[in-house]
């Protein structure tokens, strides 16, 4: 600080001191208003900062969600959740007589086979034997069978017209259903 700012001395400096003693008027300036306006402006500035920050984060979240949807659509299977109406309340339990189910025997075939072997009818035995061979070896492995002696001649002629002569001989099973012409 230079000598120019030294303490007042002399007549001129006394006059300066008298002028300094006059208190300047603050006019219409109010301390509370200035403090309030200063705080409000500072608050607005902070509010702008947070508004900008919020907008930026929102944009970032939208972009991130869009990116996830675009890039990885197959990693997340579509799961449909369907809500059904709740079942009605279970009625009060009433004792009900439930019939015991009929229990079938494991198989009746052995009995039938035994019955067939015990019968004296040769035709039935033969038919049963053919059936067994057909089930075990297939229809192509069956031996050639003689024609049915009881088949009427007229019917045999009609069958000859209907069935083709070519191809392997067809088995003629006694007791089976024959094709009849109309």
């Amino acid at each position, binding site marked *: *600080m*230079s000598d*120019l*700012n030294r303490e007042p001395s002399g*007549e*001129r400096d*006394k*006059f*300066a001191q*008298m*002028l*300094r*003693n*006059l*208190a*300047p*008027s*603050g*006019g*219409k*300036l109010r*301390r509370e*208003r*200035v*403090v309030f*306006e*200063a*705080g409000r*402006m*500072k608050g607005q*500035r902070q509010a702008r900062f947070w508004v900008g920050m919020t907008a930026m984060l929102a944009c970032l979240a939208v972009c991130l969600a869009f990116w996830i949807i675009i890039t990885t659509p197959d990693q997340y299977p579509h799961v449909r959740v369907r809500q059904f109406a709740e079942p009605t309340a279970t009625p009060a339990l009433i004792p009900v007589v439930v019939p015991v189910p009929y229990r079938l025997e494991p198989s009746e075939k052995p009995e039938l086979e035994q019955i067939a072997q015990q019968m004296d009818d040769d035709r039935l035995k033969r038919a049963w034997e053919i059936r067994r061979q057909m089930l075990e070896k297939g229809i192509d492995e069956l031996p050639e069978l003689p024609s049915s002696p009881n088949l009427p001649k007229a019917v045999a002629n009609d069958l000859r017209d209907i069935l083709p002569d070519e191809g392997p001989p067809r088995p003629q099973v006694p007791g089976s259903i024959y094709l009849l012409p109309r």
Partner: protein
Amino acid sequence: MTPERLGELIDRYAAALVLYARQWCIAPEDVVQDAFVKLVQQVDSPEQVVPWLYRVVRNGAISQSRSARRRQKYETRKAQKLPEWFEMGDDPTGLDSSVVTEALSELPVDQREIIVAHLWGALTFEQIAELVGTSTSTAFRRYNAGLNTLRLQLGASCPI
């Protein structure tokens, strides 16, 4: 800038800043209020707060004066004489505030602003020179010239 520090600055310098802004404009309170608001909005507080406030007030007052002069030149000139620049003093041996106001208002602006800044703003001549944009010696010379003019004008009222 804490509210306590702001209140302290207002209590101590607001009236002198209003007086300083009156040299140019008719609504110095608005200029001073804007200066304090700008001070609060500063991220880094200035090293020397008082000279910074005077600089902001000076720029704001000159800017307001120019725009007001463009709008209503006549009304501005008329309104400049209305307000009192100083509080009414209780000391009967002191200077008359209205006479000082009138004498001060008739000084050239370059002398008047230096007197106001030095006497009531307590700025040093180095700070005033930086504020006004001149050298320290020039500021001091203008101060002396203005003070002598005031003494001559207030000679009858001056008790010395």
